[in-house]
């Protein structure tokens, strides 16, 4: 917490320190300094940034929401600083091909999961470090469909996005070519695209071949999926050559080759080549405003010190938990009552089976094969739809998920796991409708910094339950057709979406269709929190598209204002 006297005149910081008595605070601060010399400013080699130094934009978060716009704003010549809560690492040296050793990639601060279907965080969907969650995303990058943005129009349920897919399409195209997406051309479920994927699809692994074979017999169309991992060496502006994927199957625990298009090897180096500054280990605690409500800067903690960075504009891109948490902690942009509301998570049900074939599920891009025939199933009794994908899996991830579902222990547990090399899975990624009973709040329990831990309530509603039933039945059919025995299903939910929704009116949305906060003149939000609905596809590509679009809208408005 900053000391009172360092705060400038006219700056309102609604976040109150835990301890109100100034003398007691001072004593505790001295004690802290004695106990931990690294916190003593005199011991620090780097000089404090000049507190009067004001940059054009501060971007909080360097994942799929923050990195693309950081690059765009830097390219436009603006002075931009990104603040990343996690560290900067060198994947070529620091990453091990070992799941447990890679746990540092995940946002491991504890979140409380409530509701009938408590959502797993950490390795399930929350990252930290320069690159954010893209450091451990699977690299699955399907585009959203036109209908994903018009659920309410089409089904009378959920909400429409405030713009059509045509707004995103040019950005999808730009990103696919910048990142070097490997995928099929033409795309079977959207054959009229202006441009195909820049690289051929990655090769299919065992699970993908099994799914392809069985779906073929059942009349379900499949295709090698679009993945943000290079099927060939690729030249990229601002970075140089990136090497091709070697099928090491480790996307979800970090790529050590730069073949996977995480932000640390794509948009972030591009941003830095245009002068953007990225500060790692910078955990933002406060957002400061003047009396008119305009943001003047942020306070962050870095290496035990509290630092202020003044800015003319703030881009909040911290993900759908930390973004609303920061808004709530700072009592910012709360007028609509929508911050923290309509938390969504994709139904991600998995079906596993044991096969006579040797599969070795650690090899190849994990999400090798896709089918989008279930985008709008004819026999659906639910709104929206889902995609199907084959899944590769690493042993620790598999074992921990499996025991949670099957509760195997003792000899049966060791016996079942001996089949690991013969086990393959498929899963879905389904749309999730926004619902009032699914939300995030601040709990009374404090984290190590003394800030309230977030509590997330999630209960799969009727629509998600119907979709799950439909998908489980179909996936069991596919795996039976493929020759699997000992088939079992794991109901799970992945991705963190909603909680600061985008809309046309400040009465029911936090940001406008450009990503600008209704309540605050110089605050933009861009990450999965602004999604009005969840989409029936993995969110990363759409977050990146929104990010570039948000930057462009900001630059346009800035130009118009002179």
């Amino acid at each position: 917490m900053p000391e009172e006297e360092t705060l400038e005149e006219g700056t309102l910081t609604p976040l109150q320190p835990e301890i109100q008595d100034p003398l007691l605070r001072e004593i505790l601060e001295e004690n802290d300094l004695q106990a931990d010399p690294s916190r003593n400013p005199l011991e620090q080699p780097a000089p404090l940034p000049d507190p009067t130094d004001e940059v054009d934009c501060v971007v909080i978060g360097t994942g799929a929401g923050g990195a693309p716009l950081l690059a765009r704003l830097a390219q436009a010549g603006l002075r931009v600083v990104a603040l990343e809560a996690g560290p900067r690492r060198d994947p070529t040296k620091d990453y091990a091909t070992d799941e447990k050793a890679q746990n540092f990639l995940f946002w491991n601060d504890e979140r409380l999961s409530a509701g009938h279907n408590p959502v797993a965080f950490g390795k399930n969907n929350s990252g930290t470090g320069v690159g954010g969650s893209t450091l451990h995303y699977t690299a699955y990058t399907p585009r959203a469909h036109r209908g994903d943005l018009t659920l309410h129009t089409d089904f009378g349920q959920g909400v429409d996005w405030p713009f059509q897919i045509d707004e995103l399409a040019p950005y999808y195209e730009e990103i696919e070519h910048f990142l070097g997406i490997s995928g099929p051309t033409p795309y079977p479920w959207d054959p009229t695209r202006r441009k195909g994927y820049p690289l051929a699809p990655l090769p299919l692994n065992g699970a993908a071949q099994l799914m392809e074979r069985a779906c073929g017999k059942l009349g379900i169309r499949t295709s090698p999926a679009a993945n943000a991992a290079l099927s060939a060496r690729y030249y990229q502006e601002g970075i140089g050559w990136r090497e091709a994927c070697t099928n090491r199957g480790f996307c979800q625990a970090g790529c050590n080759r730069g073949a996977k298009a995480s932000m640390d090897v794509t948009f972030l180096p591009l941003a830095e080549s245009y002068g953007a500054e990225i500060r790692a280990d910078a955990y933002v605690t406060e957002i400061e405003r003047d009396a008119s409500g305009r943001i003047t800067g942020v306070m962050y903690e870095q290496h035990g010190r509290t630092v202020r960075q003044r800015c003319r504009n703030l881009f909040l891109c911290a993900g759908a938990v930390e973004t609303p948490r920061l808004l709530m902690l700072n009592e910012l942009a709360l007028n609509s009552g929508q911050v923290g509301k309509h938390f969504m998570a994709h139904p991600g049900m998995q079906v596993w089976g044991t096969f006579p074939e040797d599969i070795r599920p650690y090899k190849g891009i994990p999400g090798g094969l896709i089918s989008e025939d279930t985008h709008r199933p004819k026999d659906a009794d639910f709104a929206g739809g889902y995609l199907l994908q084959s899944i590769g899996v690493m042993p620790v991830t598999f074992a921990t998920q499996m025991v949670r579902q099957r509760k195997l222990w003792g000899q049966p547990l060791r016996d079942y796991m001996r089949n690991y090399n013969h086990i393959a899975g498929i899963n879905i990624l389904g749309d999730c409708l926004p619902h009032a009973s699914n939300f995030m709040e601040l709990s009374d329990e404090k984290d190590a910094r003394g800030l309230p831990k977030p509590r997330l309530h999630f209960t799969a509603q009727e629509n998600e339950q119907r979709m799950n039933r439909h998908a489980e039945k179909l996936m069991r059919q596919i795996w039976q057709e493929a020759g699997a025995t000992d088939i079992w299903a794991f109901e799970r939910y992945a991705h963190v979406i909603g909680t600061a929704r985008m809309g046309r009116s400040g009465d029911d949305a936090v940001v406008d269709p450009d990503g600008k906060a209704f309540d605050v003149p110089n605050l933009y939000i861009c990450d999965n929190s602004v999604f009005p609905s969840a989409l029936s596809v993995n969110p990363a590509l759409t977050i990146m598209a929104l990010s570039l679009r948000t930057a462009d809208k900001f630059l346009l408005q800035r130009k118009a204002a002179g």
Partner: protein
Amino acid sequence: MPHYPEGTVRALLETDLVTPATRAALEARLVSQADYAPQFFDADTYQLLRAVAARVFPQPDRETPIELAPNVDKRLLEGRADGWRYDAMPPDREAYRLGLGGINQAAQAAFQQLFVALSAEQQDVIIGQLAAAEAPGENWQEVPQDKFFEEMLAELAESYYAHPLAQEEIGYVGMADIPGWTKIGLNELEPREPEAYG
């Protein structure tokens, strides 16, 4: 069910097919922890956890079993989390204290003895009750036993299958990835991938 030859992962760690960071992570786990002295748990509770872990992952085939309790003790000592917790559960330290205490209560109810004093068969009865969420004991009023069992099981499974010997057991050699993999389709193996027998 497939069995794989012993020594595969250990042999690969000696080669240049494994990166230095990977080797460091795996070799550290090969150091025996049989003499580990608990720092978070008291001695009795630690022995109780060891006894429970030995029934969840029985290892009659190993002269020196893979120790799973030290990682739990170290994690709780350092206060590390994995990013989330069931809201219905107390904080991890409290959950382990209550849950392990509940296991002793169930042992007392069924056999009038502490869990560590029971035979392996009797211990399995208690773990079976816990897995079915039917174990008696007043502590289960404060910690839901199905969630406690799930969390403990997942934590022990993570430690077990992260161990090079357990990876040898299931035929996993994904750590030997410096050359990458070219034979990735069904029934395609590279020379460094062990073939199963039995």
